[in-house]
């Protein structure tokens, strides 16, 4: 059986033109996806069923027992943390928010360690953006800043930018200029018409210089800024102003380097300045296929995109205080439910150490670095493969991922729904 127009559940590009061939209850071929997507569709090594730590080993348990464990853990906790959510569908995220509210816990998602700074910047100055098709059809100038789409979002260039012909660009490769700004050469910089190599940590200075030039104050600049010759900066602003439609995409190279959210703020303000001359937009390269969705869900339900603390009964938001890393580093939380993410591979050591000291339940199809310190792991279906649900593309377009396979694994929504129902029985009889 061939399933057409399936949606790839790997990165924020959320490519929805994948062809999956299923034979005898297994995926045997995947067309159109990049290697990352292929790997996700064809990957196995799933846990067969829930496991519970038993001294130094694991023992298999039933789903009922696993749910029971999670319920008890959460009900006993004073300050539970519900973390992750990027690799699952919106319907499951909604249950998570309701659960956090009822438990008076903290709910946070992986954006607090990736594009959290971008969100803080947007909360200060806004966000002039657009959908990816707007770029594909119109943009004659692209800037990739602090990101390497060839490795992280492999089809971004072919579906939306460098190689994507559009309504107003019949030959995109010829008619569209691509500028790449990075601290080092990457696969992506090789494709650039203009590669701007900046010194590590100099993004803020370079953005400020570009803004100054755009405002006609370039004369005040030194000969080089952040390792970039003034002439190149002037040339770039010139290209930007001459473009009919410019689009900036930025990644963790801008959000997680020195300056953090201030870098993004500066980049947005540059786009704002350029918008007075021509059409310009800016967007974040969101990582997980549905990390943006968890920001959206949290926002319509609580008012805030991440790091929400319900301990006061109301939704309280103060990134740096109510975000997962901070709560763990302060050893505040006494139980943690991790859903569809792998903090074990990304969090600072001190946080992981605390996680190892408290009860942790992980809901995830695969064993990963977090498995090493969780007490119970509950394997679930993979949204987009054996479960369906809503995901938000990096530009905010919601897409329903398809179920291409039946495996019998419960979905995240199902497991979370069961945990929530039990918690409701106790807390909201």
């Amino acid at each position: 059986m061939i399933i057409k127009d399936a949606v790839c559940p790997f990165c924020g590009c959320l490519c929805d033109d994948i062809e999956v061939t299923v034979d005898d209850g297994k995926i045997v071929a995947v067309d159109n996806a990049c290697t990352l997507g292929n790997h996700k569709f064809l990957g196995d090594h799933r846990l067969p069923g829930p496991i519970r730590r038993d001294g130094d080993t694991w023992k298999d348990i039933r789903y009922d027992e696993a749910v029971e464990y999670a319920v008890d853990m959460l009900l006993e906790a004073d300050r539970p943390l519900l973390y992750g959510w990027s690799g699952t569908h919106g319907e499951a995220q909604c249950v998570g928010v309701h659960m956090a509210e009822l438990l008076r816990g903290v709910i946070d998602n992986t954006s607090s360690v990736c594009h959290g700074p971008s969100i803080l910047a947007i909360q200060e100055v806004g966000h002039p953006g657009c959908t990816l098709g707007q770029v594909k059809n119109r943009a004659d100038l692209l800037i990739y800043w602090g990101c390497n789409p060839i490795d992280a979002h492999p089809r971004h260039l072919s579906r939306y930018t460098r190689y994507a012909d559009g309504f107003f660009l019949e030959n995109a490769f010829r008619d569209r200029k691509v500028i790449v700004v990075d601290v080092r050469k990457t696969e992506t910089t090789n494709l650039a018409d203009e590669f701007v190599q900046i010194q590590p940590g100099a993004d803020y200075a370079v953005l400020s210089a570009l803004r100054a030039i755009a405002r006609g104050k370039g004369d005040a600049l030194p000969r080089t800024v952040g390792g970039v010759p003034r002439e190149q900066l002037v040339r770039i602003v010139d290209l930007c102003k001459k473009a009919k439609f410019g689009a900036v995409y930025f990644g963790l190279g801008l959000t997680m380097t020195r300056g953090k959210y201030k870098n993004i703020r500066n980049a947005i303000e540059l786009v704002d300045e350029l918008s007075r001359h021509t059409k310009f937009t800016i967007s974040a390269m969101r990582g997980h296929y549905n990390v943006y969705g968890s920001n959206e869900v949290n926002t319509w339900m609580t008012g805030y995109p991440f790091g929400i603390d319900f301990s006061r009964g109301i939704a309280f938001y103060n990134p740096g205080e109510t975000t997962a890393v901070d709560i763990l580093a302060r050893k505040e939380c006494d139980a943690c439910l991790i859903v569809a993410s792998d903090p074990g591979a990304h969090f600072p050591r001190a946080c992981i150490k605390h996680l190892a000291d408290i009860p942790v339940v992980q809901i995830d199809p695969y064993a990963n670095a977090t498995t090493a310190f969780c007490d119970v792991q509950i394997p679930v279906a993979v949204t987009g493969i054996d479960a369906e649900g809503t995901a938000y593309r990096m530009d905010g377009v919601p897409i329903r991922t398809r179920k291409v396979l039946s495996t019998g694994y419960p979905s995240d929504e199902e497991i979370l729904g069961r945990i929530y129902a039990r918690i409701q029985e106790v807390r909201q009889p």
Partner: protein
Amino acid sequence: MSEMLIKNAFVIDPLNGINGEVMDIAIRDGKIVEAVGDAAEVIDARRNLTLPGGVDSHTHICGTKVNFGRYMSPEDMRAGRTPRRGHMHATSGYSVPTTYGNSYRYSAMGYTTLLEGAMAPLEARHTHEEFSYTPLQDTMANALFDGNWSVLEAVRDGDTKRVAAVIAWVLSAVKGFAVKLTNPGGTEAWGWGENVDCIQKPIANFEVSPAEIIRTIVEANELLHLPHSVHLHCNNLGKPGNYTCTMGTFGLIPDLNKKRQTLYATHVQYHAYGGSGWNDFCSKSEPIANMVNMRPQIAIDMGQVMFGKTTTMTADGPMEFNLYRLHHDKWSNHDVELETGSGIIPVLYRRKNLVNSVMWAIGLELALLVDDPWRCLLTTDNPNGAPFVRYPEIIALLMSKRYREEELATVHPDTEHRVPLPAIDRELDWHDIAVMTRAAQAKALGIVDIGKGHLAPGADADVAIYPIRVDETDPSVDYRRVIDAFSRTEYTIKRGRVVCRSGECVVDGNNTTIWVKPKVSPEYDMGKDPDFIRKFDRYYTVRMRNYPVQDEYLKRNLCIETEAEL
């Protein structure tokens, strides 16, 4: 079978010609009926004002742009936080509350049906997801067609039937309710950072003028026999002197429908400006209201501005950028491929500001100068003019000249030289208010036949009982009591269940989404049209098969099927 009897209700039900009769209302299984048995649950309305549930025919409560309004504004979220309590979830936000916040606050004010004013078809799924977390009201959404390429091309080719066919396909696909045009032509021009000026000049690449777009789509809308008319946000919003453009637009509209208006012009306050710049900015509510009075094919909503903080959001991207350049706070913009755009900025309307004061006056003037309350609906274009929680104050301002005078004394002193408001003596009565907040809204939306906006047997049992005795209240003097009463019902009843009691929402609710599906002949089925499919595949970034909103997103829903003349 569930039965309820509301006794001793002081009923105003304009669609059924009831104006202040003390009577009982019987309800069975969510519908109004003639009579119920003795076992029915009884609610004593104690002669309090009892109206059909409120209908808001233009608000922004759900969807990409609304959610982005929340996302970018933690300060607004802090401004309205309530804890979880009983059946009520925690809420946040003042001008753009969370979905639960919207639903609870509207319910406390007696509103049971809401129309989301602008949904980008490509992102419709988001609106429907939020609808499922807006439990206490029935919901529906206008789909945006202002910059839809297939529509623009068909308009250019003079092919009205094809325009209708595209609209039919998109509305059914995205489970939309009606056609919204926001700054037609202008949103496409904004794709290049441009805008249109007024309605005659064609836009680049598509060579169609706003006037052609509006006229053709108005005709196409009627070919589809849609319940609602075209819902138009005119060009040139917010610009001094724009009233001529508004008048020109109104002049384009033929009278094509016996049952309702042919054009719903929204937030007309923002389109009734005189002057050549901000220095001689003034009200032109009089010519606009006169034009509406003379043309029964047009209904408008006020778009009332109230002083204080709010968030503006609209598909009119270029307008928001201009406004941002005046306000310098923060600016978000989101263009949607092949379809439309949007912008968001926070705004503070100040009494001390002359322009803001004039804007405040214009909304009220429109409501007082349009003779027929059935054709001027009470809205703020929530949250653009003000959050909907300000409706009770607007009601009081319309009912009391004294209140208006007291307010006028606090605004910018030059205002009185620029607006006719001080000279207007009219005070609206309870019936007018009932018309402007529910009966006329239901009629304008074309949902009377499905049981909205009235209380005759067969209608949905959506009822609002306000804690105020009409026979003991003189609204022109006791306007504070009017404000209090309209702020919080004694009971809000939705589909025969008490959902809110004195501001406290008492059930989880289970809303209905209302959408339309025009039936067209096979030759006008765009889903099979090779050219339409080819363009879709080439230019959208979502596959055509993944575009329609799946049934999973519609929980309870009501599909209105129409027989199109195609």
